């Protein structure tokens, strides 16, 4: 049986190091299988998160050979065969232990975004009518599995640590899903400009590249949101109309 060497980050917020482990490689195996094999046989206290094993829950995010990925969807045969494979935790969040990071910030950010507020029902029985065409875009955004890999690669968070000011691509997608929801009546554009600082995003598209759900984060969510913000606050004509209305 083929063996592969894994260099897995072991440590906590105080420090740590890469440790080497050998794993037996079976056909079709993914990195998560190897990590769990190592946990089961060699390192019972190796901390990692996983649930679905099929790219549906977004628990097993890590950096594999330096690239942010889901461990359960990264097949061994996509990685170079004769070199050790490095597995380390996401970098944009504080480390808890080994491959487990403290992602609680994300949950706090979401709470601050104004919730869904539907218009009055369309039909007497309290239901709404929406065509499939009208919901396609929002359904794309709602595929998000909250793996936070996009947050991990966004330089505003990863390198500049603007967690206090910038909500990151995941929550721009979330805001877009609400703003473009055919039934929603809330306005979040002011918050997007001032609280979420959507302006910090300079459209590098790194987030889109890592999204395991292939959500076109930048083109479909962020850019249209930016345009809406511009229309609302900077477009001279709208501004004029607003000033006039205020009177």
């Amino acid at each position, binding site marked *: 049986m083929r063996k592969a060497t894994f260099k897995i980050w072991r440590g*906590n917020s105080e420090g740590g190091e890469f440790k080497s482990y050998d794993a037996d490689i*079976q*056909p*079709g*195996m*993914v990195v998560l*299988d190897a990590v769990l094999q190592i*946990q*089961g*046989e060699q*390192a*019972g*206290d*190796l*901390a*990692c*998160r*996983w*649930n*679905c*094993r*099929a*790219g*549906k*829950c*977004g*628990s097993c995010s890590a950096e594999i050979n330096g690239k942010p990925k889901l461990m359960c*969807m990264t*097949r061994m045969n996509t990685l170079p065969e004769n070199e050790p494979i490095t597995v380390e935790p996401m970098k944009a969040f504080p480390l*808890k*232990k*080994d491959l*487990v990071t403290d*992602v*609680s910030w994300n*949950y706090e950010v*979401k*709470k601050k975004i104004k*919730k*869904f507020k*539907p218009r009055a*029902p369309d039909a007497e029985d*309290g*239901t*709404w*009518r*929406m*065509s*499939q065409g009208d*919901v396609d875009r*929002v*359904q794309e955004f*709602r*595929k998000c*599995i*909250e793996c936070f890999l996009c947050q991990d690669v966004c330089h505003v968070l990863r390198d500049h640590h603007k967690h206090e000011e910038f909500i990151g691509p995941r929550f721009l997608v979330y805001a877009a899903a*609400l703003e473009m*929801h055919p*039934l*929603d009546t809330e306005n979040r554009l002011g918050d997007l400009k001032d609280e979420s600082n959507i302006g910090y995003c300079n459209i590098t598209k790194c987030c889109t590249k890592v999204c395991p759900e292939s959500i076109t984060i930048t083109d479909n969510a962020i850019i249209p949101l930016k345009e809406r913000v511009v229309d609302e606050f900077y477009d001279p004509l709208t501004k004029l109309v607003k000033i006039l209305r205020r009177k």
Partner: protein
Amino acid sequence: MAEYPIFEHDVLVIGAGGAGLRAAIEASAAGVSVGLVCKSLLGKAHTVMAEGGMAAAIGNVDDRDNWKVHFTDTMRGGQYVNNWRMAELHAKEAPDRVRELEAWGAVFDRTKDGKILQRNFGGHKYPRLAHVGDRTGLEMIRTLQDHGIHQGIEVYMEVTVVSLLKDGDRVVGAFAYEREHGRFRIFRAKAVILATGGIGRAYKITSNSWEGTGDGHSLAYDSGAELIDMEFIQFHPTGMVYPPSVRGILVTEGVRGEGGILKNSEGKRFMFDDIPDLYKDQTADNPEEGWKYTQGDKNARRPPELLTRDHVARCIVREVKAGRGSPNGGVYLDIAWIKEKLSNAEEHIKKKLPSMYHQFKQLADLDITKEPMEVGPTTHYIMGGIRVDADTQASTVPGLFAAGECAAGINGANRLGGNSLSDLLVFGKRAGEFAAKFAKENDHGTIDDSQVSEKVKWSLQPFNNPGGENPFKIQEDLQEMMQDLVGIVRTEREMKQALEGLTKLRTRLANVSATGNIDFNPSWHTALDLHNLLNVSEAVTLAAIERKESRGGQFRDDFPLKVEEFGKVNFSVKKGDKGEMEIKSIPIPEMPAELKQIIEELG
């Protein structure tokens, strides 16, 4: 007790899948303070993995559908040992619960006239499953989560409950640890709701995650509650079988709902060979009619691939045993063939089954729009669980409620696909409502220190057995044994062997050893979960031995037929005075005349 932080709530909900979240939302809306604990992060519970949809007789696609038909389908699917009152409430209330999700922001796939679209699924007479492609569970959990975070619910993520705490007969709290540092926590509550999901990790081949260790079943059992129907486990007919590392991962029934067919190595559609009498007049007898059904022809009957899961799983086992299986011990599931019927088949498959397309492409290098998949049965769901009152979801222990997969009754001997997600909503809501009511009528009770110190000592034992057994190894041995001896096809002889095996595993567990320190330590977590896995495995085995017949999820090679007498009882398991597991049969109450009549007319 003073050494450990105490968290006080009116209602404590254990589990944040669909059932737990829905319960927490309801209790909170009733104006009581709610705590919600879960082993993983919020939004990662099993519910997120559900694919095909949630069953509710809204009648958007076929207006002949109504609660009576749904009720009848559920009872027939459960082979009439269901709690009929639960089946009735579920069928009546599911439509409102689904519409409520839309009001909270869920975005279902739409019909041409802009309503919630519904799809066909096994055992459902009409297209009934509200869905979002094949990621309905994600839509559901996210909607509940995003609604719930604005309801003032206190969420405790990555906290595992080890034991319930009692004041006399009544449950008044829970003893838990947080995973990051292994610190113990005490929760005090006037009412506790269990919504902990399933037990799939008792088996080797399963669609369940590490969380499915039957904690709620076992917590309830240890606190004196009754479990019923534990012999009924659903082996989903279509799990992935290749490559080896993905064995067990689910392939949604939606594939068959969209026209996918099952074939053996000879290319034969073997499902036509054995159609049970109960379903003869509802099932197509030729491929063309079956295809028409999947395309919405109201006069066509459903293809045999959409018979109930227990039956389809057994037919697959039969084909494999007879040497007509695929190279890796499964059979073929083919959706690619629909290109003979649809010019845009490839697009259609990708649109309707995006995550299946993705899953096979990435995990098996296989394009399902071009080639058939290899599939075989996987342990999926447990019909059995905590015995509850149908209306209130109260267990047999005061102060303790249960909802979702860990509760029992609605499904009887076999669950219809899609009935779980709607069950979570209907009975999650009811559990929340009645737990809140109970909390308003009762005080917090007292928890004596000795209960807590005993749990602390027990929980730390794996650190005091240096050089002892590896918990992962014990878990693996248990899984192999249950798979071999208490699996899809059962005999008394093998199950007696399993009971002996369980006794041995308990002895090994007493000497289980955790490596490393207490910080986020999976070996320790696994060691503690094992107690629950052994409890549920024993309950499953005992009940399966006692039911000397074949019905739904239980197939006995030594008693291959259904026996009328067993159709009148459920088996209940409870902890005896000396700590041993006691089993008894409880008669199923007489069905009211109006429900009987519905079944006679529609069944």
